[in-house]
Structures are given as C-alpha cells and as structure tokens.
C-alpha cells in the first residue's frame, strides 16, 4: 500500500531541517571559539548512575549566590553609601521604588538561604567522603569560600546604617582588633581611621561590592571547573558506586558466570 510516508518520518524530516538551521550560527561560533563544544561537554558529560538529590545542594548554593549577585547589582542602582544618605536610600528602596521591597527582601533573605545551603552542602560533601583523593583541592577551595561568604554577610550588614547595623559592626571590627599582634592594625584598616565613620561605610561597600564578589566569583569558578574535571562522586552507601572495588575474578573452574549488563538510561541499547 503506497501511501504518504508515515507521520513520524515526516516529523523527523522537519525536525532535521530545524536542527540544520539552528546549527548554522552554532557552527559559526564553534569554529571561531570552541565555546559550543565546551558547553556541550559540560552538559552531556557523564555522571555516576546513582547521583541523587543530595548532589543538588551544590547547584542550589550557586543559585542562591547568583540571586544575591543579581539583586545586589539592582540594589546598587539606588543605594547611597554615605552615613547621611544610606538610611534614607534604604527607606526609599523599601517603600518608594517599584518592587524595591521585593528585591531588597530577596537580597536579605537570600543571604540567609545562601549560608544555610552552604553549610548543608559542606556537610553533604563531608559525610559522603567526597573530600578525599582526588578532590582535596576542591575541598580546600570550598573551605576558602566559606569565610568569604560570611564576610559578605558581615560587610553587607552595615550598609543599611541602622542601629543594629552600626553596633554589630562596632563589635565585629573590635573582634578583629583582639587578634594578637596585627589585630589593632587590622581593625584600624577596616575602620578606615580611629573611629567608625563615613570611611568605614565606603570601605565596607567597596569590599561588599567589588573585592569579595570578585574573589568569590573566581573561587566558585575554580570550584566548578574542578567538579567537572574530577567528576561527581557516588553516594558511599551505593551498591553501584562508580569506582567500586571489583570482586576478584573466579578461577575458571566453575563455568565462568557472566554478570548481565543492566539497561542504563541515556545510552542506546547494545553499547
């Protein structure tokens, strides 16, 4: 019965055409930069079969950080970092600017969520033993990210310049001052002088907006690169953990039992 080609083949030919068209700019980009290949490698790389929901904590932390970065940049459009105007600009953002309350609220609560997820992620990595060879460097990078994130919280806390901001910062800076030998000098540097004042606020603003985020972006980038390069580790309780010990091969006196290969998602059958 010679009828029109079955619908699936027609759809398939249309799909092929769409793919062809989309590929034109992608191929142009790939030939001149290699970026497309990099993205493809990142997206379609293999991860262990038993990767589970615990492994999402890392990317959740990254999402929280990106929310902070995004809302932070928007807030910077309206915030004024001087003692006389900071408080008023915060009030302005909260009450007058369209959806300013939402952006400010997201930034403030995003900070707490970020810290919580950070600790949860750290705990997950610790309990999974995923800091052992070859991921020691990744763990160290992560531990360096932790105090930077806490410092972001500390420097950001001063910016609204209300009572709780001012006094928590007084205590925090003096805390640094109690460190032996260099403590007083460090406190002096953070304060920008003998007393907390306009220099302190500007300094904290620069730290919070430029220096610390720069360092964080760099370290997080390194952290992600190492994750992709070294691979994600399997949960330790898993029976099919990647890299598990293989049982010693049986001496071939018993007829050679062959383990059947399981069906694996994402791979065509027969490979």
């Amino acid at each position, binding site marked *: 019965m010679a009828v029109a080609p079955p619908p699936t083949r027609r759809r398939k030919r249309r799909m092929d055409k769409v793919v062809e068209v989309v590929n034109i700019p992608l191929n142009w980009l790939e030939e001149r930069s290699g970026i497309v290949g990099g993205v493809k490698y990142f997206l379609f790389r293999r991860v262990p079969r038993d990767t589970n929901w615990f492994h999402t904590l890392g990317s959740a932390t990254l999402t929280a950080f990106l929310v902070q970065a995004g809302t932070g940049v928007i807030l910077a459009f309206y915030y004024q970092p001087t*003692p006389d105007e900071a408080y008023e600009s915060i009030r302005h953002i909260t009450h007058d600017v369209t959806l300013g309350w939402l952006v400010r609220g997201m930034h403030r609560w995003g900070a707490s969520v970020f810290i919580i997820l950070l600790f949860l992620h750290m705990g997950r990595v610790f309990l999974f033993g995923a800091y052992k060879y070859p991921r020691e460097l990744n763990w160290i990078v992560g531990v360096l990210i932790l105090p930077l994130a806490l410092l972001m919280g500390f420097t950001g806390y001063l910016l609204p310049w209300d009572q709780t901001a001012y006094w928590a910062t007084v205590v925090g800076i*003096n805390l640094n*001052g109690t460190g*032996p*030998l*260099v403590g007083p*000098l460090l406190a*002096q540097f953070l304060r920008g002088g*003998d*007393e907390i004042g306009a220099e302190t606020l500007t300094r904290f603003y620069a730290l919070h907006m430029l220096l610390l985020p720069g360092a964080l972006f760099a370290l997080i980038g390194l952290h992600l690169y190492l994750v992709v390069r070294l691979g994600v580790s399997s949960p330790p309780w898993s029976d099919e953990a990647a890299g598990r010990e293989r049982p010693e091969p049986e001496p071939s006196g018993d007829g050679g039992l062959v383990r059947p290969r399981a069906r694996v998602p994402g791979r065509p059958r027969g490979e």
Partner: protein
Amino acid sequence: MIVVGVIITLIFAFLWARDVMSPRRKRAAEPEPEPGHPAVAEAEPERYDRNAFLELTTLGLGGVITAVVALPVIGFAVLPAFTRQEYEGVDLGPLDNFPENEWREATFLLEPSAGEVSRRTVFVRSNGDVDGVPNMTIISNRCVHLGCPVQAGGPREDQDAETFQAGDAEVRLTPVQPANFSCPCHGGAYDTEGNRIAGPPVRALDRWTFAIEGGNLTLVAPYSVGEVEGEGANAQIEAYQLQGPGEHVDGLSAFLYPIQAQDFE
C-alpha cells in the same frame, strides 16, 4: 599610570615572545663545547647569553611595573587609616551644668564636621574642687570588651535633660544615678569608677582628659585605664595610651598588642 604600565608590559612581552620564537634561541640551547678547549670557549660568540639576559630583564621590568602600579594603590588603600587624628576639644557647656557629686550622661559630636556619625556619650561626675581646681570623673560609654554601648545602672531622668548648643553641635545632658555601669552585649559590669567587676572586659573603662576654658567644661582626649584605686577626687588612675576594646593594657596579655595604630605618624 596603569595605562603606561600596560603599554610597557605589552611592548616587552612582544619583544620577549618574538625572541623566544627566533632561531637564535634554538642555537643557544645546543650543548656547550667541551671544557677541554679553552681557546674555543674564549672565542665563543654566545658567552654573553642573550636569552638569559632578556628573560631576566623581562621579569625584572615586570616586577618594577607591578611595584610602580601596586605600591601607590595599596598605600592609598591602607595608609590613610593610620594618619594621626588630632582631637579638637569638645565643649560640653558651663561647669554649672554639672552639680557636685551628680552624674550627667552627656552626648556630643566628636567631630561636628562629620555630622551625627561622630556622636559619642560620656558619663560625667563633678567631684568638687581639689586645691581650687575642679576635679571631674569623665568615663567613656564604650565597653572595653568589644565596644558595645555601656548603660548606667540607675534611674535616668530624661525629662530633666538639658541641651547646650556648642556651635552647630547639640550637647545633651541627662541626669542619671548609676550605682554601676553594665554592658548589654556579653554581661560586662563596671563600678562607678569604671573598674571591671564582672564579665569579659579586659580593663577599666576609658576616660577623657578635660580642661576648663572660659568656665566651660572641655573634653580634650581619651585615654585607656588599667585600674582605678580610690574614688572621686582621690582616685589613683593607671593611665595608658588609648587602645582599642579587647586589648589588655597590663599583665601578660598586654604583650599580644605591642603595636598600636597611633604609633604611626
């Protein structure tokens, strides 16, 4: 400055890269002639290794450029925090506002040009005259544990507060009856001479030196106190250079804090 540095870096980088690619480098990497030919060694044209010279110069100049850019920038970031701050006297108003043996909580602007951010508080008690000279106990309200605002342990009469205009800065005097001073942060407590009686503070409360100018009480400069013996006009005060909160002034732990920011000019 940065642009000049970048241009210099780029020029030298280009020269170095070109030299690395050139055939001369490959020749210089060949094995040296045997040591048994001193005549050849002396006449050898490549004795002065241009390669090494260029590499060293590049690194050296790179270092110079980095220093020329970085040192002023770092100096700019760090040094202003250490410039000496001269305290201008703070006028707290006529001496008559401070009746003998009564405490007043005085808030004032330490630096009127800086505005409200420089508002500070002291507890002032007049101890009468000693040898014809008025004697005052002036205690700072910053806790010497970590800098929290210390509160007077006693009733305050806010309704009897007086204000005094010193230029464009307002000084407010509130009568208080402290039996001690306490800090709300971590449980520090001090007696009426500022000595520590409980909690983590590491020394007595800081005090201010004062002067009487034209019948007005003037605060001169703050200083740190180790311990105070005696009371009021008879107080023996162990005075030290002003230090930050949490820093011991005496005892073994004082060795942890040998350098103070005020030691820099």
